[in-house]
């Protein structure tokens, strides 16, 4: 059954269908409509949604709720991510499963509240102290807003990690025709959970890449959590050996599983020397341009990157094979182009197609740039 709805509603529905039962956020354009949906809908399933006093508390509430066993989500835009920063670090350190939606708007600072942008792509990866990895997914259509929200919950639960959903103003607030019923699934991802244990160790792992078994506050186990460097019991430590192991674990638990996290949508044309790469809403203009170019008899390949971080390097390298020119299409000054640049061979030309004036890139602009 087709409906005419916007991305904010799609994300909210997908979250609730993934078992999300806690949401806190602070009003900010263009993320407010997600907050409003959750305030209205979560009580119906016995969940809790609350407008926090600021973005800092929104994240704090989410961390506390997640550690009490809830499946949590929050949504904001760039200025809010700036305020989330310290708590993103706390969520990484305490291995808190949570989904953070960034409805990107034009920056810097207050920038353009109602203006589309993809300026947070590097910020999401490097937005907290220490440089530890997070997962960032980027839907490129309404249907993917649904499926990737669900995937974000799965990954958050499996890896006990903050997972970002990088949206933008136009994905969130543009209404479109979509058959939710056809794509919706009831997914209740399992958080690997400890059974009762007299001597439960909240951060115990066998291998560096393992995720420690979760136990909620209020359950049968005593749970010690800390945002400071800690041992497996959750006690603060300064012992270089233990600190080293913890920090290597926080990297390994994401990077070791990169194949599981990686997601791209490649449409490769044999013999093509040109590859167009995009993510988020400009992907749609890219696909339109590709089909137009092909209808003119040109060979063009395209790649939509759905999991931006960790960078799906192997999949990108496969797509780069035999390519002479790579065009990276994004609504910023070329942030993700940096990643493609470092993967491309010296003789592969990496060119940006960028717009930073708040308008969408048109298929025509892309066709003109690629000259076919």
């Amino acid at each position, binding site marked *: 059954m087709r409906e005419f709805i916007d991305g904010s509603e799609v994300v909210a529905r997908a979250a609730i269908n993934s078992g999300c039962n806690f949401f806190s956020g602070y009003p900010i354009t263009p993320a407010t409509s997600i907050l409003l949906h959750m305030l209205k809908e979560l009580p*119906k399933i016995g969940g809790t949604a609350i407008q926090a006093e600021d973005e800092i508390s929104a994240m704090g509430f989410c961390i*506390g709720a997640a550690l009490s*066993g809830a499946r949590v989500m929050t949504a904001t835009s760039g200025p809010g991510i700036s305020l989330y920063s310290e708590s993103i670090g706390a969520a990484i350190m305490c291995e808190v499963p949570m989904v953070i939606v960034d409805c990107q708007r034009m920056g810097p600072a207050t920038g353009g509240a*109602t203006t589309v942008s993809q300026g947070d792509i590097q910020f999401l990866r490097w937005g907290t102290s220490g440089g530890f990895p997070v997962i960032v997914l980027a839907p490129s259509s309404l249907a993917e807003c649904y499926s990737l929200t669900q995937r974000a919950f799965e990954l958050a639960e499996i890896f006990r990690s903050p997972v970002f959903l990088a949206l933008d103003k136009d994905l969130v607030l*543009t209404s479109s025709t979509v058959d939710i019923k056809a794509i919706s699934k009831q997914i209740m991802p399992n958080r690997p959970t400890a059974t009762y244990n007299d001597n439960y160790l909240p951060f115990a792992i066998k291998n560096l890449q393992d995720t420690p078994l979760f136990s909620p506050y*209020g*359950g049968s186990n005593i749970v010690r959590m800390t945002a400071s460097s800690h041992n497996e019991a959750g006690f603060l430590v300064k012992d270089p050996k233990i600190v080293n192991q913890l920090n290597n674990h926080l990297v390994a638990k994401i990077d070791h599983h990169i194949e599981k996290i990686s997601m791209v949508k490649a449409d490769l044309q044999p013999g093509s020397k040109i590859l167009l790469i995009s993510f988020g809403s400009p992907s749609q203009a890219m696909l339109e341009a590709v089909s137009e170019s092909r209808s003119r008899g040109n060979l063009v390949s395209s790649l939509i990157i759905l999991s931006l971080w960790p960078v799906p390097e192997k999949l990108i390298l496969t797509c780069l094979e035999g390519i002479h020119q790579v065009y990276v299409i994004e609504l910023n000054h070329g942030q993700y182009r940096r990643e493609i640049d470092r993967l491309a061979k010296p003789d592969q030309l990496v060119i940006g197609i960028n717009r930073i004036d708040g308008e*969408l*890139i048109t298929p025509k602009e892309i066709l003109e740039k690629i000259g076919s």
Partner: protein
Amino acid sequence: MIPSSENTFLNKEKLPFPFCPGCGHGSILDQLNSALIKLNFDSSEVVLVTDIGCQGLSDQFFTTNSFHGLHGRSITYATGIKLINPKLKVIVLIGDGGCGIGGHHLINAARRNIGLTVLVFNNLNYGMTGGEHSATTPTGSFTSSTLKGNLERPMNICSTVSVNGASFVARTTSFDDNLSDLIAQAIQTEGFSLIDIWELCTAYYVPRNKFSRKALENTIVSLKFETGILHNEIYPEYSTAYRDNTLDLQNKPTFTRFPLEQKYSHQLKTLKTFIISGTAGKRIGTAATIFCRAAVLSGLFATQRDDYPVTVKTGFSLAEISLSPDESKLVGNSHPDVMIVLSPEGFKKVQSKFESLTENTIIYLDKNLPIIKSKAKEIRLDFNKTGLKKEYWALTCLAYILYNKGIFPLDALSDAASIRKDFANDYINAINGFKNL
């Protein structure tokens, strides 16, 4: 002071406390332990949430659940825990530093009356980072950051939370023999409770200010900061109130759905794009949504992208619509097939586009708008003649276009306009208004 009974909440393997000789932290923690013993809790029912500063080390000495987080944010984590599990006894241990940097959370937790117990380890300066002044450092005091005496006045933590809705508020010192009873009373309070516990920082504040227990007690008196239970009133506790407040919603179906089953047919072969530009508050977006839903009812794929300034009922409002017989795509739309311009604000927003438009575009403009220079086909309409309020001009114009261009039936538009029952009559009236154009 460690109770001899086996029934302790202190982790004997970790003791003794690592605090400086004469520091008040240890005695407060002993009294907290006594309070927990008196209340006969199980360790699993209690969560200690600590802030940054020397008291931030203390959760490690307890056998309860614990969370140690970022500076000033302890109250936010505690709130999240309480919201999910109201049965838990959530106790926040925070310093005067945390009350300063987290002042916003302190006020709002009180205002919300969320059932946390906040114990303030108030030693009048930052003990961990080197004795800098805090939000509670008395005026004139010497700290490493107020070399010629503090110019600021100390924050009255108790008054702040009292006037902002806290249930239970008390002030005392770490020397108070009845502190454990006071802590027990605070923990038993359903709503937000706070005890401001004044104490000595023997590493910094005491030597710099020739401070002592006597001086501490005198300072409280001279500041006219009262001691004892200062506020004790029952208000609804937030996490329980939230559940009561939303009980009637439980098990109601989520999301209001407007399924749009195809009922009509359309005459569109390729993508057709529209821009409607008018004034904010004049239902430009609503008209576009009704039009798009009607298109979907006719088997088309529709996309609507809105643009507007940050203001609400002033300035322009613009809607871009794409209709397509196949899966619709969200792409830049600078050369629409149809442009509708309804007001001076809308005109101003799109006038830079007029010149680049080709003869493939039709522009519908209100009769009273300025002359334009464009290759596009221009159709002037006299919306005043319809007698409709400006809120309905966009919809009536879309009805006019449908009637003349026959993309899909007008009946689809009427059906879509009737989805929201509350405004259906006005919208149907607007649709019929096109006959007077």
